[in-house]
Each structure stands twice: as structure tokens, then as C-alpha cells.
């Protein structure tokens, strides 16, 4: 990669910085944008009235804002290497624009998917408010998906290395297409994990942190031949353990 380490580090710090800021926002959950509120009236059963009330308490726009913030907080660190690559292989004047277009394409895909996800979440809260059953069912699906060849295929394609056009409109087009395709494969790999915290009646934040760790860790693994395979993809965990040991030895 034709990018000095100091610039690579700077890109990483900026991205982690944005992610952490959004995490703080999410964890404080202002206006309850990250959780769906419901009242006991809706517990009496689904109806047009209860849907109206649910939407009054949880406007769709607020839910989408929450979803968008969740995507930024959880997913932005996954974009560090592609953004470094875009910086390294673009003209200086094009670097920032291409990065913005790439990130926009990526987040755009997640927002599109988010509209469906939020609708599902609302439906579940309407029909089964406060129930653990949807989360348990999705958890089982997520585990099956986790070890499936399709998931591995999506993770592999998430490592697709795009060589962008350098000049003019084609450079912009390639950046946004790269973002969109990166988003598509990322959704394919992580849709179940992303939805899971939203379905939990309690422990939403903790689940979000856990899911972020899993998704980052699996993204760091090298591509593998797709097959049914029980693989917990713990590279981030191994990395943290190894780095802790190194730092500990240095300190002694």
C-alpha cells in the first residue's frame, strides 16, 4: 500500500474517533432512538390503533436515525483498510471525495436494508411485545447462518479489492460502486447479527457491543473456501491476547 504509516494511523484514529463518539451517543440513547417503546395498550393485541400508537411513540424517522447511528458506530471500523486503500491509490485531490462516496454507498445499502429491518422490528413489537421468542428464533437462524458457506462467501467478497479508476467521473463512479458492493456483502454476512440486538427486550447495548466484536473479528479473518464449518472467527480476540502478552513482556 502506497501510504505512509503515519497516514494509515491517522485514518484509523479518525474512523475510530467517529465510531466512539457515535457509540457514546447510542449508549446514552437520547430520545430512545435505539429502542422501541411500547405501552400496555399494545399488549392487548395488534390492531390499527395499536400500530398508530406504536408509530406515534416511535416515529419511523427516529427509528431510522437510530439504525443509521448503529451502522456508523458498529461498521465504520470495518472500513479502515478499504479507505486506506482508496487514499493510497487516488490522486490527492480525489482522496476525500472518493472516501465520502465510498462510505455513502456503503451506508446507503445498510439504510435500505434498515428500512426493512425496522419494519420487521415494529411488526414484532406489535404482535409479540416484550417477548424473547423472536430473539431466540433469530438467534438460532444467526447461528446456522454463521457457520454456513453463504456467510463465508459474503465474508470473502467483503475482501474484494477494487482498483479504482483514477480520473474524473469514473473515479467517483468506482468509489460509490465499491461502497455499495462492500455494503451488499457486509449485509449478507451480518444481517442476522445486526438484527439480533434490536429484538432483545433487554440487554440491547451489551448485545450490540458483543455483535460489533464478532463482526469486526470475522471481518479480520482471511478469506476461506466456503463450506459448512464451525468457526468462531476469533482473530480479534487472538490479536488482543497476543498484543497484551507483548505489552506485558515489554513492561517487565
Amino acid at each position: 500500500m502506497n501510504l505512509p504509516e503515519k497516514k494509515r494511523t491517522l485514518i484509523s484514529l479518525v474512523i475510530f474517533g467517529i465510531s466512539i463518539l457515535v457509540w457514546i451517543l447510542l449508549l446514552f440513547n437520547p430520545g430512545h432512538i435505539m429502542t422501541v417503546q411500547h405501552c400496555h395498550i399494545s399488549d392487548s393485541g395488534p390492531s390499527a390503533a395499536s400500530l398508530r400508537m406504536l408509530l406515534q411513540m416511535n416515529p419511523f424517522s427516529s427509528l431510522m436515525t437510530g439504525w443509521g447511528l448503529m451502522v456508523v458506530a458498529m461498521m465504520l471500523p470495518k472500513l479502515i483498510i478499504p479507505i486506506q486503500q482508496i487514499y493510497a491509490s487516488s490522486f490527492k485531490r480525489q482522496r476525500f471525495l472518493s472516501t465520502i462516496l465510498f462510505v455513502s454507498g456503503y451506508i446507503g445499502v445498510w439504510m435500505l436494508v434498515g428500512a426493512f429491518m425496522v419494519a420487521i422490528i415494529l411488526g414484532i413489537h406489535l404482535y409479540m411485545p416484550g417477548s424473547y421468542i423472536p430473539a431466540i428464533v433469530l438467534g438460532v437462524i444467526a447461528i446456522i447462518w454463521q457457520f454456513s458457506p453463504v456467510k463465508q462467501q459474503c465474508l470473502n467478497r467483503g475482501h474484494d479489492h477494487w482498483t479504482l479508476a483514477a480520473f474524473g467521473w469514473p473515479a467517483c463512479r468506482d468509489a460509490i460502486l465499491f461502497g455499495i458492493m462492500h455494503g451488499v456483502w457486509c449485509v449478507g454476512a451480518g444481517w442476522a447479527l445486526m438484527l439480533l440486538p434490536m429484538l432483545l427486550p433487554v440487554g440491547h447495548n451489551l448485545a450490540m457491543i458483543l455483535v460489533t466484536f464478532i463482526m469486526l473479528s470475522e471481518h479480520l479473518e482471511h478469506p476461506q473456501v466456503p463450506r459448512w464449518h464451525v468457526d468462531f472467527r476469533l482473530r480479534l480476540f487472538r490479536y488482543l491476547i497476543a498484543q497484551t502478552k507483548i505489552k506485558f513482556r515489554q513492561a517487565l
Partner: protein
Amino acid sequence: MPVLTRKNAWNNNGTFSNPDLLWYAKAVGVMQTRPLNDPTSWWFYAAIHGQSISDNPGWGTIPPPPNVPTTPLPSSSLISQYWDQCQHGGWFFPPWHRGYLYAIENILRGIVAQLGGPSDWALPYWNYFGPGNQYQMPPAFAQKTLPDGSANPLFVNARYGPNNDGNIFVPFSWGINQNCQSNTVYTGRQPAFYGGNTTGFAHFASGTGSLEGNPHNPVHVAVGGQDPTTGQGGLMGDPDTAGLDPIFYLHHCNIDRMWASWNAAGNSNPTDPNWLNGPNASGNRQFYMPTPAGTPWLFTPAMVNDISQLNYTYDNLTLGITPTLVSQNALRLRNFGLSVDDSKLLNAKMDENNDSELVGANSAPLKVDAKGAQTNVQLDSSGWNNVAKSLKTTTMAQRLSENKLPDQVYLQLEGIKGKEDSVVCSVTVNNQYAGHLSLFGLKNASQKDGPHGGSGLTIRFDISSIVDKLELSNALDINSLEVHIQPVNVIADGNELTIDRVSIYREEQG
């Protein structure tokens, strides 16, 4: 135990009169009698480097000798622990191969001793840069039989050589040299940095160091050559078959000797714990080799940092290049009429972290077939002006006083993909020779579900001297550069290369 000495394979004219080669052949023969699933077998060790057992073409289609088995497979846990470990395209290339050689040498030495040979037997090296005809493969490898009339385990059918005619030698006309020995810094990419760049979390291996880039890679491809009828590469030309050819270990022994010589000349290896602790430091799989007892030996670069740690040396630890009285930078400045003392250039630090900038690129992916390919690299006026500014003789003295040297300019072939590692091309820029393109590792790097995610290979050439000539002939005010890529061997139908982008980068110095 006394220190073991690895000696030149060309001793006694590289024939079986050289006892190192005779015992090597006998011990290889014993390893080849062991089954594939035996961690101390020849086949298992080759698979540690890389394997294509289930591919077609793969191990099952290799023309004998050797008769390469594809069964019985070891357990999946042994496979995941040991196989397909080789480290290319990054800073672990030298230490991993050192541990690999050390481990197989231990097994071979044990067998040599059991056969009644010397207990201090050590791997010989093939120094193709040696005097006389040492650029040729030691003749013992081309004999079909041993002196006792039995089959020679060193003889390999699929070893075709650079002209695809079975004559095995290292073709210096391909630009193969040991200029890497003049590098002074380990961490970074070819051609200025020796050992390769950090790998970290990036899955694409584009951090090849100069030792690996040249001579390691082109020697592999030259020795392997191609089947002249199909264009399929020989064993040495592909990381997944290279370890099956006994010449592999003599080639790598020479690469290891060059690294040891480079250290002996006062150059240092990384002290970064992320290198010393190996890929485990970034959460990747660790380096394991089977011992003669078949048990795993776990090693890190810190354990093979110096050959004295492993109790061996070489009979020749000279650097291999003639010491130059002036640096490359001083020579370059002389072309611009500036005679500068090297000591004044010391502050202009050689650093992989110098700023790099794209200054030109072609507009569409390039396909390279048997006829070759040509593309125009359009230059971006803003970036190219920066190059021109750094080369202006009127301001060069002023820039030097600020410890700034003229920019280095690189031609970069990005995302080279294909199926056949043995293809070699020459590359010219504006009809001036830039270098030879050697594609060892191409197939693996092109596989979408492989460790590199299908990113292909990215190879760069230093074209500063070509750009200097343009400036000196007042011809730098141009909008594009013409790049020709011409194959020097066979590109069969279906084995065409694609190159995602051909680009020009400038790199500030100082």
C-alpha cells in the same frame, strides 16, 4: 555440538563427487518413500510450503518423476496446523523460510546419519551468482541415476528452465541480480527495502521486499520454466508445487545465505515485536514445523533472527556485491551535474514512510496475451509537476540544502491476475527497459476464496532513471507515458493476464 557449515553445491563441480549432494539425494530418496500423511515425508514437507492436491491441474497431474502421491491425506487438524504456511509478499518471508529449511535439514541429517553418512551433514546452497558456470544448476540434479545406478531422487521431470528446453540456469538477461544486497533497511517494499513490508490486517500481500522480489521470485520461475507444448509451469514456478523439487531447498538455502550475509555486513533485522513474535502478534496462525520425531516445533522470527541461534553458518558470508564508493543517490545527482558528498545525503533519510502520491494511471484494465500489451498512462498535471519540480536542476541545490532529494518515480502494475505463475514479461516505459515481471504466487493471489481475496499481485518498478533521462533531454513536459508489456515465454490460451491498473507514483525523499 559443533557449528554446522552449509557449503556451496558447486564444490566438486556440482556432481555427485560432492558428498553434500550425494547424501542429500539419498536422504531425499528416503523421505520420498514415506507416505503423504507422515509429517516427516517429502510430500508432507512440500505441502507445508503449499499444495494443490485437490486441484486440476495439481499434484495428481504432475508428470513423474517424482511420483507425487495425493493420498493418504493426514488428519484435518494436521493439515490446518502445518500445510500451506509459506509466507510471501511481506516481512515474514525471510524468517519463515529459514525455519522451514532448518526443520527439513534436521530430518535429512538424521536420515544421512542413519545411512552411515556424516553426522554434520548440512544443506548445500546453489549460489547462482557465483563465478564461472555456477549460474547453471549443479549437474547432479540433471542426472537420471545415482552413481550406484539407482534412480536419482534429485531428478525432476517438470523442470524446464528459462528457455523451456530442460537446460536449467539463471538467466541474467531477465534482470535477475543481487542488487538487493545493497539495501540497508529491512522493513519496506522492493526495490529499496530488503525484507518486505509489515502485513498487519491487510489481506492483500503487496509488501514484497527486494530479496523476495529479486532474485527469489524470478529464480523460481526461471528454474521451473514451462512445458513447451502446454505452457504449464514446472514445479518450481508455483508455490503449491515448488517444495516437491529438491532444487527448491538449495535455492532457498542461497536466499537464506544472502540474508545472513546482509546481516553480517551490519544490516539489522526489525526489532518491532510484531515481527519478532510472528504473525501470531496480529492474530494469524503460528509457524509450525515437524521435528524428526514428527512432533511440532513452534517458532517465531525472534528464534531465527540470527543463524548462530540455530547453530549453523555458511562457508561464504560475503555480501556478494562490489562495494560502491558512492551511493545510488550521489550517482543519480551526478547525472544532473551535482557532485555531492555522500555524507551530505545522510540526512535525507531512506524511509518507507516517505510520502507517496499517485501521479498517473491508465484508463482501463489491461489484458496481456501471447502478443503482449501496450497502454498509455495518462499523467495528472498536478502530481507530475511535483515530479518535475523535484528534478529541476536550477532548484536542486537549494532542495539538497533542505535535505530533499529528487523524487523516486515508480511504475506500478496493480491487481495482476491470472492462472499461470510461470509467465514472465519484460516491461518498458517509453521504449526504455523498466524490468522483468515475474509472477510467482499469481494463481493463489488471484483466487477469490484464497487468503488474498483475489486481489492479485501488485508489482512496482523503479523508473526514476527513465524519468531522469526525460528531464535531462528536456522531454519531461508530457501528458502520458507509454508502457509495453511483452511476454518472454509462453502465454497459452486461457492463461492471459489481466492488470487492473497501470499507474505511476512519486515518492518524496528526505
